[in-house]
């Protein structure tokens, strides 16, 4: 028996309930008026979308860290993954947790904010301040919902290029990102090779595989099967498809891990009990963990955004834009590449990275490629993996030397 005054336990419970109610409110507020810098592009600067329509007006929310040098040569663009956002190295305004890439970005970190000027924009279609389906449609004054045009990885990158134009940054020292972020990195190097000095696509691929599209479809169907989704009009109907989105997240989360990691973390252990309850409670620790992942995710993410961003990843096929020949995407590229994959990543397996490397070699590009041994699966790129950190640090230091960026004087 735990001997704790009941009043305190009660207070904790109440505050948890209040937080759960308030979190969606915070989230909705972030979509139009985020806790970030925002650039608003008026009707004179529309975003030309692959879908064949213009998005205008639209806005991009972004975070910056460090200082842009006088020559404007030390900018590092960080592209976030499907469920990430621009809060790469600061406390998150909705969840109150640390940045999603705290291990990689910060003072003295491999992407050193004392040396580089780091920019991380929220992607178009997301829900943390850049225009997306949860944003207010200026034509109606209501949330866009499914009236928001379908966007692609190339659209995200095009919008980011407009952001860099706005910031007066001709070319970036590096573009880095994992997973969907890695897709954006690859698109950057193909669309704007002259604007990218070095590139770090991590745990990425040049196209989404059939298996990955299949997983995404399951997630989308889970959302759309939730009666509170209301064909995407849940804001107007004052509903919230939390259950569907949570299930989508639970399914996806499994694909970010590995069998070995799940076994190591949870095995077949029971959650707060010694025997099975012969019910459908979360008897197993792994069930409880997944439910927690699902519940905490819906506090900070918009269900329609999840549909749009998974769609953008599904549509990504870089070679298709170059007559099916991937090498043509990087013909004559002088960008320095560092491609990184993880042994236990079955979502973006090493073979995908190897295909990138082969195509880059065929085009004579300067490429490094490392595969890191880990059992942590696709999510390894977000974690404190010493080898990953050492490789990124070394690669960037070599590139900084070539770019003439001075080293940081440390006391």
């Amino acid at each position: 028996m735990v001997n704790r005054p009941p009043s305190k336990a009660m207070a904790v419970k109440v505050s948890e309930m209040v937080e759960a109610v308030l979190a969606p409110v915070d989230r909705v507020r972030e979509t139009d008026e985020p806790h970030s810098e925002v650039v608003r592009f008026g009707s004179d600067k529309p975003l030309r979308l692959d879908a064949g329509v213009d998005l205008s007006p639209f806005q991009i929310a972004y975070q910056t860290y460090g200082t842009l040098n006088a020559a404007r040569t030390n900018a590092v663009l960080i592209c976030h993954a499907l469920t990430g956002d621009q809060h790469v190295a600061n406390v998150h305004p909705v969840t109150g947790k640390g940045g999603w890439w705290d291990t990689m970005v910060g003072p003295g970190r491999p992407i050193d904010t004392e040396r580089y000027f780091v920019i991380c924009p929220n992607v178009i279609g997301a829900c943390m301040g850049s225009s997306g389906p949860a944003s207010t449609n200026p034509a109606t004054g209501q949330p866009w919902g499914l009236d928001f045009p379908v966007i692609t990885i190339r659209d995200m990158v095009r919008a980011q290029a407009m952001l860099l134009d706005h910031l007066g940054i001709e070319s970036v020292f590096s573009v880095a990102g994992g997973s969907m972020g890695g897709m954006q990195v690859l698109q950057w190097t193909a669309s704007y090779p002259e604007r990218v000095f070095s590139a770090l696509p991590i745990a990425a691929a040049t196209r989404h595989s059939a298996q990955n599209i299949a997983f995404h479809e399951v997630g989308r169907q889970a959302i759309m099967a939730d009666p509170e989704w209301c064909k995407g009009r849940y804001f107007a109907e004052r509903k919230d498809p939390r259950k569907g989105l949570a299930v989508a997240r639970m399914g996806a989360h499994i694909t970010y891990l590995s069998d070995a990691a799940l076994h190591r973390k949870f095995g077949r252990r029971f959650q707060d009990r010694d025997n099975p309850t012969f019910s459908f409670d979360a008897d197993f620790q792994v069930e409880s963990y997944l439910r927690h992942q699902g519940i905490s995710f819906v506090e900070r993410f918009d269900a329609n955004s999840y549909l749009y961003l998974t769609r953008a990843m599904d549509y990504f096929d870089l070679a298709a834009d170059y007559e099916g020949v991937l090498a043509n995407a990087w013909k004559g590229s002088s960008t320095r590449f560092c491609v990184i994959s993880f042994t236990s990543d079955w979502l973006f397996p090493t073979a995908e990275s190897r295909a990138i490397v082969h195509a880059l070699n065929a085009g004579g590009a300067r490429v490094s490629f490392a595969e890191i041994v880990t059992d942590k699966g696709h999510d390894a790129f977000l974690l404190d993996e010493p080898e990953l950190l050492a490789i990124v640090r070394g690669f960037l230091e070599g590139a900084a030397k070539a770019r003439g960026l001075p080293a940081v004087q440390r006391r």
Partner: protein
Amino acid sequence: MMLSRLKRDLTMAEAARMPGGSRVDLLVVADMVARGAKVLDIGCGDGELLRLLAEIREVDGRGIELSREGVNEGVAKGLAVIQGDADTDLSDYPNDAFDYVILSQTLQATRQPRVVLEHMLRIGRHAIVSFPNFGHWRIRLQILFRGQMPRTDNLPYAWWDSPNIHFCTIKDFRDLCMVAGAKMEQSVALNAWGSPIRLKVPWWFWNLFGEQAVFLLSRKNSEQTGK
């Protein structure tokens, strides 16, 4: 003549900058590479040669390495190294992609030395190959008197765990150059103390006293490639 060039090019100041000093065979290889060239080092290990070449020859260097540890160490040093296998991955490289393709102490570990050499001559305008000479007198004596596979400081492995599966002598390598269509532009043998054999000596002498050999090669008939 070789040594005087070495002395001229690798000044003490340059050598002092190399941490821990460099192996002589690597300096001999570096001496064959033109300044600012584009270089591919096959089996680059932890990138020691690439670093030397970048330092004293200002090359645009790339490396392929089989071992994951070697690759990750090289990349962390800021070198352009990829994980790959000389026996399978060279066919992905286009013709004339590099000025020099280097195979340093790796030829004997490849499954198909002839195929590897032919690819090197196709990918690069020059190929540089260094290898341990199995015809060295000490190796010959070990087989003659001990009747066992030889082990030396350069070749420390037992036969059953050795990565070296295709040993050859300097004479054998000359034969391979003939069949693979390679022209020998320059050759250096290093004696047991790691210094170049300077005398103008016949091949049999090299084959007996050279512990290691370094060859600079080019295609015999460059019009043949691409057909």
